């Protein structure tokens, strides 16, 4: 019974909660490093959501063995191929974000949003 509830919308519910927490983390967190981590968490949530769509009951991992022939026994390989791309893209974005953080740290001396707004406030806005 629990399995039926989980399969129907339990897993989707947990994934969307993780997504919402990641998005909330970006908005709520005061430290820029934590915003970057929450951004990564949000991307992991969407990657997991995409992979959920490809699951099959009783399917093995998508490497073709000659003993098993017909297609119903293998897990859907398409989402896995796409999500490799999404994971490497998230690494690229994190790398660029961290380089920007180093420059912000050298310019403002802090990574806290409110301190930066004060320091930046009087000379720009």
């Amino acid at each position, binding site marked *: 019974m629990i399995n039926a509830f989980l399969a129907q*919308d339990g897993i989707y519910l947990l994934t*969307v909660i993780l997504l919402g927490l990641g998005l909330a983390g970006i908005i709520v967190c005061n430290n820029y490093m934590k915003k970057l981590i929450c951004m990564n968490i949000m991307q992991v949530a969407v990657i997991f959501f995409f992979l959920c769509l490809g699951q099959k009951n009783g399917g093995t991992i998508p490497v073709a*063995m000659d003993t098993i022939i017909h297609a119903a026994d293998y897990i859907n*390989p398409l989402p896995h191929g796409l999500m490799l791309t999404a994971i490497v893209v998230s690494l690229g974005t994190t790398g660029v974000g961290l380089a920007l953080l180093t420059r912000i740290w050298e310019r403002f001396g802090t990574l806290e949003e409110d301190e930066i707004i004060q320091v930046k406030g009087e000379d720009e806005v």
Partner: protein
Amino acid sequence: MQLRRVITVLIMVTILVVPFVAFRVLPEIGDPNSAPNSHVTDYYIEHTISECNSPNMVTSIIVDYRAFDTMFETTVMFLSGVAVILILSNKPKKRDDMFRKFNPCTTNTGPSIFKTVNKDVMISIIEPLILIYAIYVLFHGEVSLGGGFQAGALIGMTYLLDVMVVKRKDRDIFNYSLERSVSVAGTGPFIYAVGGILGLIGGGLFMEFEAIPLPIEAPELHSIGILIVEVGVTVGVMCTIITILKAIMDRVSFDDDND
């Protein structure tokens, strides 16, 4: 102030959760005849060995059916390496140390237990193993698990391991300059593009491995195309990771560097 943040988090989560719970829209997890599991993937599963000569379906999808995607994905990797270099290219002004609130490590855990394990001996054992494993993952990518990204990232990790342990003065394995590592990172995706252009030269469309102008029959041509592409991806990912690490290392001053 803490309460305000908790409330905003709860509001955000409910805004996103309500639509998903309200309509039961997505297929039940795992049922074999849901839309994604029945429409296109049966072709991939049945034809992966006969057409692309690679039992690993995920690799055949990445590098053969949707090879165009992965070419631009490797370019994203190269682009992030170049972007890190450009952003960290300025010479930081000598900052007064007022901002650097350096709080010494308070918990003292006694003499360092690492004295017993000699780091340098461990390194000379582990690194060759990881490199051999990376080469295996690269060339065995389409039969068992693995592929270009994993192999490139593994070699990048051996560089990382080496940088962390060996002191900066006497480091000699990966010691070429930032500019050289970025240029090699650029050639990675270019090798990938050459794999596609070979198909053009052979008269077919872009990324068509059957049209590679070599006198071998079709499935073998696919595996040669896949090999060229995997090598390109590995070179691209490896050198980008080394470039980003090297760019960050130049900016970050490790205090214990001079021990």
